[in-house]
């Protein structure tokens, strides 16, 4: 197990190194450049060049990369060229907000999605099953931005129940904080629920047909115990994978939802950086997102082991 984690961490480090080079090269290949962005409309070439020199953009790529990577190794994510601020605090703030969104949304998705999936599996072919499918279809059939707008209109404009956007730190009180999260979370849930529910349903159906479930029934266990204790734990593996992927997705930014709900998370930060061609900001953001994604995957794999002792065993062996 320990060896397994070590191996995984080593490969994670390797991935991040590869990613850093890739990110660096790829962002360099992006059209547009920050100097002309800063110079603005119709800046003459000398102006753009002057800015480029000032920002050190004229140096060879390898030097730029070395400086960047060296800084990151020392925990310095660099300075945003456009915002003229150190990237670290900005990024961490956005990350924290995305994290909040991801954790809350995924908690809801996991609980509701798994519950719906289990329900549908248990009542396979019955009305409940079809209703669950129906609801999940509705969730994926309509683009997230459409849901988002409809929610804004209903809960913001008409019912005036919830704030329509923005973010309030929890330090300003739990209720305002929670109120600002409701709509983005609901939209995300609509978007992600279907997959989780369907996945849980199908693996639950498989597990419900296994011998050990039958044996649990033969022991006279009531259905609730059979389903929750015996079946569910074993049915969760694929669900966990997808949850981890979704976690990475939300951390990486759900631009559309963040935009509509004015949620200052990673997605909008990245989009901002891309639109302003702020390379250090783009690079740092993607690197952090990648790292977060890899960590989410690792966590999922460790969760597997927690859920399934056999895999724990396999980890020790392989």
């Amino acid at each position, binding site marked *: 197990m320990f060896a397994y984690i070590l191996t995984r961490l080593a490969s994670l480090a390797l991935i991040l190194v590869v990613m850093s080079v890739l990110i660096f090269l790829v962002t360099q290949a992006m*059209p*547009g*450049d920050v*100097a*002309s*962005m*800063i*110079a*603005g*409309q*119709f*800046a*003459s070439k*000398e*102006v753009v060049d*002057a*800015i480029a*020199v*000032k920002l050190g953009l004229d140096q060879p790529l390898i030097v730029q990369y070395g400086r960047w990577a060296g800084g990151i190794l020392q925990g310095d994510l660099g300075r945003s060229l*456009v*915002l*003229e*601020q150190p990237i670290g605090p*900005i990024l961490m*703030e*956005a990350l924290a907000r995305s994290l909040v969104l991801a954790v809350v949304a995924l908690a809801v998705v996991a609980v509701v999605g798994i519950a719906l999936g289990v329900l549908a599996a248990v009542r396979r072919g019955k009305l409940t099953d079809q209703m669950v499918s129906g609801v999940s279809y509705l969730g994926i059939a309509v683009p997230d931005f459409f849901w988002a*707008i409809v929610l*804004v*209109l209903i809960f*913001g*404009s008409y019912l*005036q129940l919830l*704030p*329509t*956007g*923005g*973010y309030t730190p929890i330090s300003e009180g739990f209720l305002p904080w929670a109120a600002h999260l409701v709509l983005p979370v609901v939209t995300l849930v609509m978007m992600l629920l279907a997959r989780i529910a369907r996945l849980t349903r199908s693996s639950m159906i498989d597990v419900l047909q296994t011998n050990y479930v039958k044996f649990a029934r033969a022991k006279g266990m009531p259905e609730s115990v059979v389903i929750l204790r015996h079946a569910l734990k074993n049915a969760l593996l694929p669900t966990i994978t997808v949850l981890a992927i979704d976690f990475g997705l939300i951390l990486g930014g759900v631009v559309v939802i963040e*935009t*509509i*709900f*004015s949620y*200052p998370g990673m997605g*909008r*930060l990245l989009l*901002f950086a*891309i*639109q*302003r*061609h702020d390379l250090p900001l783009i690079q740092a953001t993607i690197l952090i997102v990648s790292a977060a994604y890899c960590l989410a995957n690792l966590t999922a794999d460790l969760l597997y082991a927690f859920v399934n002792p056999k895999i724990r065993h396999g980890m020790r062996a392989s």
Partner: protein
Amino acid sequence: AGTLKVSVDSNLNTLDPAKMKGGQEYVAAYLIFNGLTVIGHDMTVKPDLAERWEHSDDLKTWTFHLRKGVKFHNGRDLEAEDVVATITRIQDKATGSTARVNFEIVESMKALDPATVQFQLKSPYAGFAELFGERQARIVPRDAVDTLASKPIGTGPFEFVSFSPGDRVVLKRNANYFEEGLPKLDEVVVRILPEAAAQVAALTTGELDLVWNLPLEAIDKVKADTKLKVDSVPTSTWDGVIMNNVVKPFDDPRVRKAVAMALDKQTITQIALFGNGTPTHSPIPPSHPYFNTDLKIAKGDPAGAKKLLAEAGYPNGFEVTLHTPAGRATRERLGLAVRELLKPAGITVNVQRVPFDVFLKDIEGKAGFYIDGFFSRPTIDTSVYPWYHSRGSWNTALWSYSNPKMDALLDGARQAKSEDEAKSLYTQVQALAVEDSPGVIPYVINHINGLNAKVKGFQSHPMMFLDLRNVSVD
């Protein structure tokens, strides 16, 4: 008294006025900083940090006398050296200020004493005082320029408290503000809400007090709400159909003329602005006394355009790509309207949206045919000269239009000694601009703010500034 919550629709790149590019940023600039002069609601120049100013007869030496007792937010007194430092910084190419071109005219400057600063110009310029009303020419403390982008210090009515990119800028009342009893508000929160629907919803729920530059689609809704109101003012901010005069087929004036003829400006104003603007000939708005009322606004004459095209060697029209910057709804609509209106004239337009950074780098000044737009300028000269004079800064980059007659008219207007002289010259400029059609300027836009009825004392500014000095919320 109270807190005013106002929204802008896009993130602020910087709080350093010299580097500002967008309307949202100017909102902050106007609240935090002052210029030597200010453009008033009536579009005339007024004293701001400079109490008064005088110029030599040849219009080449300008002396400004600073107001006494003005303090920066950090407590230091404003001095003439700060003005010199501010302008020097703008002139530095590496700063990347778009106001740099304005101050190219300055030969030299010096602080005569802590309260007096003098400028020597390369050529006579009557509108020099107005240049200090420009958005980027905010006076900044010379010892704190490096942190302006994230921690701006100015002399303005509000002091900077915090900026969280993508989320909000928080400002508080400047207790030492030099205008007695102003500002009235204790606090201003500028929130960044990119989605129009969210802005309007927030305004309805009272989460916001004011929506700066209200999305056009939402005007009807805000108007319908009795708790809300709409405040609007005509501006000389314009969008244009840019034709590069050195790129085929637009190097032929007949082609440009044909395009201009085919475009029905009234219709375009309807489509792009839902009527919230006024058709015009040039950046001079119809509300301005210099506006040429004799000229007819183009009504759209595809037949005439076809004829001209045939003369220019395009009897069957041609196909062309029109670039529009992505995310600017009005300009995107303008692009689609152009596409539609040029169709009967035989011109096939392929609209192509381009991300803004790419637009800046690869389209503006390089492509043949695109949609662009410009904020209103403080003076008629700054609104016209750079676009139409053959050495005008925008012109050389935008459409490379060159007509000696136009140059003569514009140079003359700069030194015009009387209003009438200036008016007559500018009237001819407009006629020539329509005749040569270096590009098509279909309209000037109304600046519209949506606000809660409880916001008192607010007036929309034709320069799209957010003037909150007299505003209060109860």
